[in-house]
């Protein structure tokens, strides 16, 4: 018996009609995300930074606060690959320790402001009755002078948190909280705007016509569609949080002065810009590359999450 010959000149180019596996939505998103080179590189770098700050201290076990005054102002060497600062503290160890704080402050504050901003934005956009109230509330926060507000918050709660959680954890909670609750307003406004537009779209009308309750409407139809602006403001939020934290340290309101963060390392080394430019470069590079990588991830995610772009 010979096998029946199938005359199909383009067979090789056609997808074999195999029974398709059920593809989850997240797999589609990942496939689309993979095609964005920048996003992939960004993700790679971000994972690298995360690993460096989480696993780094185990591999590089010099105490970032230890002062070896004889080794001060030394350039890169085997003992100190990034050199040492003006007091002889190891810069690599300080970069790792600083990254730990900066990245966690960035992520936590971003998450907090995102949750707050999205919550207020969606509610204000979706429920007409809440709109006026919530948006005036947002305006109120926008109009508050940030710095005096921060001063007051820190003055009021610093001692209480310090005695409850210890100086470093207490300040961490305070800073994350302070940055979170003072940077959600832009997200809220953008989200509200998008929600207002989405609400009038046909698929929302259709969903409503079959009696979808508001709760499901928001989680199922609205939120996935406002994901892209949320993602963009999230990436900006991380950058903003890292920078605000360093500004606070600059005013003496942040972490104790010997507690390294990227912002503080940058600030401390500006005095030595002429003599030891590399000291500014390390934290500067770390901050900008992290922010850039997060921005790219956000960009890729936005494309991947948008069903209209996906597959093109």
């Amino acid at each position, binding site marked *: 018996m010979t096998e029946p010959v199938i005359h199909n000149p383009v067979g090789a180019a056609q997808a074999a009609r195999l029974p398709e596996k059920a593809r989850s939505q997240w797999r589609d998103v990942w496939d689309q995300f993979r095609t964005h080179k920048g996003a992939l590189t960004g993700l790679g770098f971000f994972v690298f930074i995360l690993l460096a700050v989480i696993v780094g201290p185990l591999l590089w076990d010099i105490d970032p*606060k*230890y*002062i070896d*005054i004889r080794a*001060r102002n030394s350039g890169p060497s085997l003992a100190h690959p990034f050199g040492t600062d*003006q*007091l002889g*503290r190891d810069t690599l160890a300080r970069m790792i320790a600083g990254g730990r704080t900066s990245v966690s402050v960035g992520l936590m504050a971003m998450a907090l402001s995102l949750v707050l901003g999205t919550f207020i934005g969606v509610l204000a956009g979706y429920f007409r009755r809440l709109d006026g109230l919530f948006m005036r509330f947002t305006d109120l926060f926008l109009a508050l002078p940030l710095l005096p507000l921060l001063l007051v918050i820190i*003055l009021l709660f610093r*001692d*209480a948190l*310090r*005695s409850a959680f210890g*100086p470093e954890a207490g300040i961490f909670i305070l800073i994350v909280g302070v940055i979170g609750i003072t940077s959600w307003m832009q997200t809220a406004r953008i989200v509200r705007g998008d929600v207002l537009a989405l609400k009038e779209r046909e698929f929302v009308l259709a969903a409503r016509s079959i009696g979808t309750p508001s709760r499901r409407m928001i989680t199922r139809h609205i939120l996935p569609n406002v994901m892209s602006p949320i993602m963009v403001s999230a990436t900006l939020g991380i950058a903003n949080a890292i920078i605000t934290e360093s500004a606070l340290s*600059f*005013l*003496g*309101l942040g972490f*104790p*002065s*010997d507690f390294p963060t990227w912002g503080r390392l940058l600030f*401390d080394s500006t*005095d030595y810009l002429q*003599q030891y430019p590399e000291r500014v470069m390390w934290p500067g590079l770390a901050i900008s590359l992290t922010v850039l990588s997060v921005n790219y991830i956000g960009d890729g995610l936005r494309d991947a999450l948008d069903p209209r772009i996906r597959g093109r």
Partner: protein
Amino acid sequence: MRLKTALWGAAAAVAMTPVMAYADAHEGERGRDGEVRVIYWQAVSIMNPFLSGGTKDIEGASLVLEPLGRYDQDGNLVPYLATEIPTVANGGVSEDLTTITWKIKPGIKWSDGSDFTSADVVFTAEYCMDPEGGCAQLAKFEGVKSVEALDDLTVKVTFKEPKPNPYLPFMGGQSPILQAAQFADCKGARAPECTEENFNPIGTGPFVVTDFRPNDVITMEANPNYREAGKPAFSRLVLKGGGDAAAAGRAVLETGEYDYAWNLQLAPDVIEAMAAAGKGKPVSAFGTLVERLEMNLTDPSPDLPEGERSTLKHPHPILSDGRVRKALSIAIDRDLLVEVGYGQAGRATCNLVPAPENYASDNTECMPQDIERAKALLEEAGWTDTNGDGVRDKDGKKLSLLYQTSVNAVRQDFQALIKQWWQEIGVETELRAIDASVYFGGDPGSPDTFQRFYADVEMYANNFDGTDPEAYLAAYTCDKVPSPETQWQGENINRFCDPAYEELLAELGRTGDLDERGRIAKQLNDMVTKDSDVIVGLVDRGRVSAHSNTLGGVILNTWDSELWNAADWYRIKE
């Protein structure tokens, strides 16, 4: 390191110039050395020091206007237009300390050729004390009842009450003598309107203004009627203003365009790098500014109700013990702090009053660093590390301190270093840096001011005006403790209360003899530093200026104008 040694050598050589200056006889006719160029990075805007509080204006004017007496580089009093410094011993100051009588050197002429008399001195007092005029140096005339001319060359100043330190009016660059004839129509409210007079005052000093451009360049010529023959050595002086400290330093040290640069407030390694060019040398001199640690003798714990924190109601649980304070003090390596933070502009000290010589105690008790002795002192005080975590404890309480200061790169370095040394002796330290405008702002509502002192240890620098430390030492009395009742104002930051101290202070207020005053002041200084370690001196901060290698005779002076001896400057010939 070698560069540093060389710099110190240079500084030492400069410090010795006065002796040599007289020895190698830089004499000759007036104006033989041509032009000297001086740069002040803060430009001089007026030549009348009574109308400006600015240091730069006072110093610019000191080239032209002179007082009866000046302070020298050690803070000693030197007669200028007077024959001698009046004291109780020579009868110039009355026994009851209420009058001082100055004798003027005979034969002194103003630069316009007229005679200098006691009438000019009396006029100057009237000019500044005029109730309608806003005299910037009124503090110098505080408590003055009258100034009268006894004859052409004698002036008597009478005070309202006994003044143990009567050397205020007509003493130092801040209160020179104006010519009565020139300023006769410029008294009171009219003072600022006399532009011509204020820009071109007639003086007795070594130079005369020929061209005055406010906030820019002042050109001067040698005073033809200067009282000392053969001085000044320069026929012209150009006083250039403007720019910043770095530019001024470069102009003298790197390019050699100028001969003298004033007050280089720059990081030590920046000055070192400039000096390496070899055109000039930095010189430093020390005043009374001391960077110190202040120990809180009261409990700043946040658990106490508001209004009781850091008040005399609760003594400090750790720092009330003198042995702990001593241990904290001797664990510090002050020489290293100087090297890291100030270089040539600092020197290690244990004192509250580091200068002038007459008042500076020889206390070096806190040096050198002695970690072992510090540990022994803590053991003796009952602080032991019972749980092996590296931090000492006693009765379940950890030896943990909150150490605050203002935001400043050098201070943060000091904090980190001191924290490490304290860690070595088993003391845990939490650091806090507060924005300087808040920290020194004195707002009674803010918990972060240095007066409020809601911390265990704090660090800052302070100094006193002039050469007499009485008012400065008077800060450490019980009634000057900041508290809620005084709106947290007061100078006794440590909350130091000692009746013996107050008694000695009262004695200082009754003593007129300078040597005796020196002895008491030293004893008071020792009571708060060496004996109790309530104030822990760290670094005596000085001032750095620079002059070119070819300018001789410069003696940096922090007690008077930096240009106080410009008449003695000369050009070093190669």
